[in-house]
């Protein structure tokens, strides 16, 4: 009996150690860059991404894009002969780990700028450290609260609820030509950001929010059905859904099951293949705002600067990784683009302060997400015109008319 107990404790210890190993992952950062044709002292940029944990689908393509960008930049001579070296760290979608990584990069590596992170929580953690040490940060997260308080040191690349919300409301009022909107939103930060913006902006587009119902990300199919039943009680003419997978897919499925023949307008949170996979047939006809990158071949003029920019990125990405670019790859690409373009203008020896000022002066910079215009008041950069409404037709993305 005693021997068995010892064996059990031993096994337990093994399990514990194994789980710790899995959870902690590899701790150190990885350095990419140097080499290439550039020979002068490298310029160091810190990158913090969520390569594991819930935001893994965001962090992976962002990393791919950043590595590819730096590789190409250094091959073509870097910035005035200085190569760019990015030091990439994984925050595991965890704010504490992001903060720790930021401190390491800022104190030990002496980086000139930080890119990161993929999600809103880790981004806020980095913001605190980068602002304190007066180093510019370009993030790829869309949470509204990132731009609350002091925005001096932080910039971002993805479109936010404001741009996406304006685009969706404009489509409902001018494209669908209906007035009564039934809103279903996730009570997570993504959904409540959207709800705040949509309820505030709807009157500007002559729309009436007849119902506004919050659901939880973890709600079962039946509970989602109850929310939908409640919204339908108010006779909406369009169902607007603001959330991230999987609930928007459940709502699409439930609408199909119940024979609700209303247009479904979603958020940029479903601008991914995952939504089509989860919703199946029910995804058909769903319309949502998204960056042009998803359907650039159909919405941009071949030969135009924007078209050629995305096409070159898409081809390079495909030939290196064998997969297609997506929205998140675009966010990563633009983050490193904005920093390196500012460095080219201000010179490779710029201090973090000088670099920040130059980033803020970015005007008309064509990126994968759209055209960036920063100003002291606006560190978001994009406008609703950088988004298009996309419709799911035959499980594929098509521009919506």
């Amino acid at each position, binding site marked *: 009996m005693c021997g068995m*107990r010892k064996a*059990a*404790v031993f*096994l*337990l210890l093994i*399990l*514990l150690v194994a*789980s710790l190993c*899995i*959870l902690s992952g590899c701790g150190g950062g990885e350095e990419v860059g140097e080499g290439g044709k550039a020979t002068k002292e490298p310029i160091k940029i810190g990158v913090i991404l969520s390569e*594991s*944990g*819930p935001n*893994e*689908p965001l962090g992976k393509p962002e990393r791919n894009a950043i590595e590819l960008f730096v590789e190409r930049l250094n091959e073509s001579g870097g910035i005035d002969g200085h190569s760019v070296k990015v030091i990439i760290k994984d925050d595991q979608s965890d704010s504490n780990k992001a903060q720790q990584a930021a401190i390491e990069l800022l104190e030990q590596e002496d980086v000139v700028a930080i890119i990161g992170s993929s999600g809103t929580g880790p981004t806020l953690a980095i913001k605190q450290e980068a602002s304190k040490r007066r180093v510019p940060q370009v993030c790829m997260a869309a949470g509204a609260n990132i731009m609350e308080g002091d925005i001096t040191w932080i910039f971002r690349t993805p479109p936010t609820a404001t741009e996406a919300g304006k685009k969706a409301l404009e489509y409902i009022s001018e494209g669908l030509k209906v007035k009564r909107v039934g809103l279903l*939103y996730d*009570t997570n930060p993504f959904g409540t950001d959207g709800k705040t913006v949509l309820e505030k902006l709807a009157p500007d587009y002559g729309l009436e929010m007849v*119902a*506004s*119902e*919050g*659901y*939880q*990300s*973890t*709600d*079962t*199919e*039946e*509970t989602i*059905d*109850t929310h939908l*039943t*409640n919204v339908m*009680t108010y006779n909406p003419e369009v169902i607007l859904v603001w959330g*991230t*997978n*999987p609930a928007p*897919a*459940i709502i699409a*499925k439930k609408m199909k*099951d*119940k*024979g609700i023949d209303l247009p479904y307008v979603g958020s940029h949170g479903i601008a991914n293949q*995952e939504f089509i*996979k*989860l919703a*199946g047939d029910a995804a058909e006809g769903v319309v949502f705002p998204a960056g042009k990158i998803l359907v650039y071949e159909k919405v941009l003029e071949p030969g135009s600067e924007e078209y050629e920019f995305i096409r070159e990125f898409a081809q390079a990405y495909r030939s290196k990784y064998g997969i297609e670019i997506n929205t998140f790859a675009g966010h990563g690409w633009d983050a490193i683009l904005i920093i390196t373009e500012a460095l080219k203008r201000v010179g490779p020896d710029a201090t973090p302060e000088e670099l920040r000022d130059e980033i803020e002066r970015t005007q008309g910079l064509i990126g994968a997400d759209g055209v960036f215009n920063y100003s002291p008041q606006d560190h978001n950069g994009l406008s609703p015109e950088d988004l298009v409404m996309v419709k799911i037709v035959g499980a594929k993305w098509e521009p919506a008319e």
Partner: protein
Amino acid sequence: MLDFWRNCPQYLANGLANGCLYILVAMGFNIIYNSTGIINFAQGEFSMFGGLFAYALTVSAGLPIPLAAILAVLSVALLGGLMERLIINPLRRSSVITAIIATIGASIFFKSLGRVIWPLEAYKVPEFTPGNISLPGVTVSRQFLWVFALTVASVSLVYVFFNRTRAGKAMRACSVNRQAASLVGIDVFRMSLYSFLLAAALGGAAGLISAPYASYGMGLELGVKGFTAAVVGGLGNVFGAVVGGLVLGVLEELIPGFLHIVLGISTGYKGAVAAVILIAVLLFRPQGILGKGMVEKV
């Protein structure tokens, strides 16, 4: 008000479907509590594995759904058994509270394991029979019939097990008085193992039928709701779970519906309904609706 009544059949159907899931999870809580005195905080994670194993076996391994379902439930039961042997049994001489804390550890470990293997926010588990049934005022998915049938079957099997089999009767004896049961020759440690096997199987079944989506994070929600249902019905009363699960499931749909449609209060925080019910029961009827021990007294 009229709108509310018109929506009622749909609320009831939705509540019944959720209630079935809560019943299965709550029975698991009760069975383990009876045999060991432990509240097993990893109960919700059994459901998570039920759903994710079903995904792995059908979508990733390509097995037919019935076979995958049976294998998933058996695998989760095995996991429950392993947990008992590796964590609970070695702690048998410690206090109950130590074992309960160990189950919290197990739940974190299980969730992390699920997150490492299945990191995405949702995986689509195929429904047993896709499609839906429409009646005037109510539309339910065909899956709902399976949920209902499987819950009735599980409850019946558990009833037969506890009343007609030797092991079941021995487990009931343990729940009345573990020391006395041990004195008359019942192996209480084996009963502890049986209770984890059974509770894990029930939890796994709940996760499996809560299709169409499974994720590593689903265990917490189901665990909390299942525990609430168990307390509402009477903690330790295996069939109180049935009452608790149904009451919780139905009220959880009816109350927000009423607040929204009749009073115009939009409520996104349905979780609060379960919490309020739990607190109300603990304040006014701490022994639960049916109370503890009804089964034993029959």
